[in-house]
């Protein structure tokens, strides 16, 4: 990211300094919440953690153009930064990783990372990879049928494109010019399986075959992702149909707290990617721009850390579900 270019880009994109700071805030918040989850895991308080680390730029860049509670998000399990941006609090996340009764996603039923919020239009997510794509096209179709300008953002990792659901959804979205944006966060691994054993050709290039644009973007560059996503949303709102965005990024942590990634990847590779950390990179940029200096950075980080510590503490104190909670609600009443 050359400052000169970036500055022009950032102005071109119509982003004010405040926008940049907001983007930075959510990226950093997500990182700190995520880190805290691993601590809770090591402390034996959170049985399972799955991370967003490394993907914060892709997530914040994309979600920034979404209208909370109007547009719909079909997130995947790493989309913590998006969820925080839309309005869930760190406390919500901690309630979820510790399986508390107040967990807003599922009341302690689902694993962490299976986000849900009816009021924020975050559609309840599950574990089977890829199922969200056909659903997202249906939600987009509803907007189209009613002539509304809502859009749908649907996310997954690169391996979520390997299953049939992704393809069926891409085809359907293309046929009906649906207002849906497919964001594939290609973080180079599916648990242990590297991209080359997962994806033939190129994900981004596949969009052409369905008759709509596919864009490969540097997923470590929040402004680049913002730009691609904003264009895609505008296109969708104009009724011109779907866009596929492949954000090239990297999974910095192991797949999850159950995974030992030393079995399948080199430490050097991770270190090399750590040097491209999207948050540090954006901070350098903000610093050079003069929008956020070292002091400001510390200030915001301190504020975030305090918020995170407080939310974690308060979530820890929250009660677990009752055994009887298991019995419902299985069916909705009429």
């Amino acid at each position: 990211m050359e400052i000169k270019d970036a500055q022009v880009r950032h102005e071109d994109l119509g982003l004010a300094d405040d926008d940049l700071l907001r983007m930075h805030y959510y990226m950093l918040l997500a990182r700190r919440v995520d880190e805290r989850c691993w601590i809770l895991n090591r402390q034996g308080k959170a049985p399972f953690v799955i991370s967003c680390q490394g993907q914060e730029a892709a997530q914040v860049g994309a979600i920034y153009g979404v209208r909370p509670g109007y547009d719909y998000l079909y997130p995947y399990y790493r989309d913590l930064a998006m969820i925080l941006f839309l309005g869930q609090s760190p406390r919500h996340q901690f309630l979820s990783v510790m399986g508390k009764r107040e967990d807003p996603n599922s009341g302690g039923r689902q694993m962490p990372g299976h986000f849900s919020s009816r009021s924020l239009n975050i559609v309840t997510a599950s574990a089977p990879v890829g199922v969200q794509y056909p659903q997202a096209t249906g939600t987009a179709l509803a907007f189209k049928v009613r002539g509304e300008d809502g859009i749908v953002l649907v996310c997954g990792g690169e391996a979520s494109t390997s299953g049939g659901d992704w393809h069926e959804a891409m085809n359907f979205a293309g046929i009906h010019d649906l207002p849906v944006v497919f964001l594939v966060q290609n973080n180079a691994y599916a648990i242990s399986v590297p991209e080359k054993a997962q994806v033939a050709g190129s994900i981004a290039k596949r969009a052409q075959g369905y008759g709509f644009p596919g864009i490969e973007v540097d997923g470590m560059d929040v402004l680049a992702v913002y730009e691609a996503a904003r264009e895609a949303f505008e296109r969708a709102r104009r009724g011109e149909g779907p866009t596929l965005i492949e954000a090239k990024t990297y999974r910095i942590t192991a797949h999850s707290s159950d995974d030992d990634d030393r079995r399948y990847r080199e430490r050097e590779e991770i270190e090399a990617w750590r040097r491209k950390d999207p948050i540090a990179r954006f901070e350098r940029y903000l610093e050079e721009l003069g929008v956020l200096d070292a002091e400001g950075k510390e200030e915001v980080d301190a504020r975030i850390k305090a918020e995170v510590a407080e939310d974690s503490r308060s979530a820890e104190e929250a009660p677990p579900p009752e055994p009887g909670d298991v019995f419902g609600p299985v069916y909705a009443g009429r």
Partner: protein
Amino acid sequence: MATKSLLQAIGEGLAEEMRLDDTVMVLGEDVGRAGGVFRVTQGLQDEFGRDRVMDTPLAESLIVGAAIGLSVNGMRPVAEIQFGDFIPPAFDQIVNEAARFHYRSNGAWTCPITIRAPYGAVHGGALYHSQSIEAWFCNTPGLKVVAPTFPADAKGMLKSAIRDPNPVLFLEHKRTYRLLKEEVPDEDYEVPIGEAKVHRKGEDITVVSYGFMLHTVLEVAEKLSEKHGVEAEVVEPRTLYPLDKETILRSAKKTGKALIVVEANLTGSFSGEISALVAREAFEWLDAPVMRLGAPDVPAVAFARPMMDAFVPDAAKVEKVMLELARY
């Protein structure tokens, strides 16, 4: 009140719900201009347009998945799976997704979709246009599975299904589509999901059946009454899951003898669940073992007529077992 076939009753149910509620829409393969391969949706696209009666690509996971997504965003979709045999690609979206939306979100999200699927053996349909698919879906809390047999029930239950906030799998036995006509009310009405129906009162044996087999059972019941003085009480679950246990048990306790007749491959079919229920809850009342009759455990109905006829239990086989039970 006019008489209607099952097929007509379902088609009318769809049209009426679409007239009453703008959010109701139909999607599936060939449901549009062609009006469906069985003509259930005939005329709907002309009346409601292409947006509300939509031909989808040949992709069952997409059909159900899109229906889920529509329901999430204010619509009440009715998805058609052209043949029950082709529902497996949608299995994940049905059992892992639609059925779980409510529970997994702690009640925040609902998934009001209806999935229509014609099932069952027909001549010429062969292995892949004939299967009884209900057992695949009757171990899935969160899902409702209905299988009405008669026209008036089907229309009323379709309305209930569409208005239900939960996903409902609506099974239609192909061989019953045009088998008979009966009076179907003209006014708006619902037949509730979860209630069995006693078609015929009797003191001697209880027979539980649905779909095409129910017709055979009812026919044989009359014959047994005339020929042998055996009075069979015939119970149709109408909803398979969740099951109306009370009605079945009340009858089984009264007669002390129960038989379940299904068209599915017997082993592992839903007949096992019904049998287990009766054997457990009506044990003290039973004068005979709970019996079952179904198709042999071979993949499905064959194309060639002699094999098809050997597969589906016919009146003779049903009569034999009903008599065996009555005389036990």
